[in-house]
């Protein structure tokens, strides 16, 4: 049963991951990410990490992916991305090569010799759990801890002296995250922002030229020299008004 669950969940996770990478529409990619997160949550249940499975679904699929979708809708980038833009020549080919190399490195070296890499032999009790996980239910039922015990253990460990300082740092990190998000997305009146600096003078100049044109038509003075000082006078007046 564990093997069947593993392969189904692995299929869901890998298919979702491929969807994230290969789907062109960002909304579809975000929904594929949900599939991957659910697959990993099933794996967490398989590995008896029940609390983490719940947290995975609630935090990742419920909060982070929704945040992604919210930003996609806010920015209006939910149209398909053009895959042709390739500023660095052959970057995608090199990326595929690097990916294949990383896969070989990960699976064939890190995994096939995992016992030698970690250097820790598997514990006897755990070995019996892994080997007899399918054959008889009685053998696994005694080894598996119920979900309540998992949550209790995590709660006790979280507030034990070993992890409580990391927990406090986590609270600080979340506070910094909230403040940083507010600061970054606020509309600033800085010098980098081109809209309030550049546009109002251009609008004012057009307006003054229109006024000048209407004045010329009324007074019927076809003299070219007279226009420039009058514009300067008008602009000076405007500046004084603005200064006050």
């Amino acid at each position, binding site marked *: 049963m564990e*093997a069947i669950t*593993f392969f189904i969940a692995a299929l869901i*996770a*890998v298919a979702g*991951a491929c969807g*994230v*990478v290969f789907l062109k529409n*960002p909304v579809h990619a975000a929904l594929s990410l949900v599939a*991957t997160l659910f697959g*990993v949550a099933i794996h967490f249940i398989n*590995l008896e*990490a029940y*609390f*983490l499975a719940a*947290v995975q679904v609630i*935090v*990742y699929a419920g*909060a982070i992916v929704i*945040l*992604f979708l919210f*930003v*996609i809708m806010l*920015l209006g*980038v939910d149209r398909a*991305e053009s895959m042709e*833009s390739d*500023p660095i020549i052959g970057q995608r080919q090199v*990326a*595929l090569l*690097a*990916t294949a190399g990383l*896969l070989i490195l*990960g*699976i064939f070296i*890190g*995994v*096939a010799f*995992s016992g030698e890499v970690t250097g*820790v032999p*598997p*514990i006897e*009790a*755990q070995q019996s759990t*892994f*080997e007899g996980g*399918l054959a008889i239910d009685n053998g696994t039922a005694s080894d598996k801890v119920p979900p309540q015990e*998992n949550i209790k*253990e*995590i709660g006790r*460990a979280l507030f034990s002296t070993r992890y409580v300082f990391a927990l406090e740092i*986590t609270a600080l*990190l*979340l506070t*910094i*995250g909230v403040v*940083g*998000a507010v600061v*970054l*997305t606020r509309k600033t009146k800085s010098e*980098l922002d081109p809209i309030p600096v550049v546009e109002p003078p251009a609008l004012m100049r057009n307006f003054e030229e229109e006024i000048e044109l209407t004045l010329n038509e009324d007074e019927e003075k076809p003299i070219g020299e007279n226009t420039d000082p009058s514009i300067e006078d008008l602009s000076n007046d405007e500046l004084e008004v603005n200064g006050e």
Partner: protein
Amino acid sequence: MTFAMAIGTEYYLALSALLFTIGAGGLLVRRNPLIMFMCIELMLNAANLAFVSFGKEMNDLGGQMSVLFVLVVAAAEVVIGLAIVVAVMRRRPKASIDEVSVLRG
């Protein structure tokens, strides 16, 4: 049907490596910053899976604790990253990471 196949830690590690590789490849290939963030999430999930499977093999709760902290850090990272993306996209509406190759607003 005798599908009596023991799923050891190495299966989970293989899946974790596969997920991490897909995420890394997507990060290199894609241009949309939002999808690049999703690929980072994929890589973090692969690392989480490896943490939990190692924690089960060692019969230690430290793996699950690490995953808990990785989750919090990932949430904070996504919030800050998406705020940066929103701030950048306001000035350069084209959704491509090549637009921001120069580190200036």
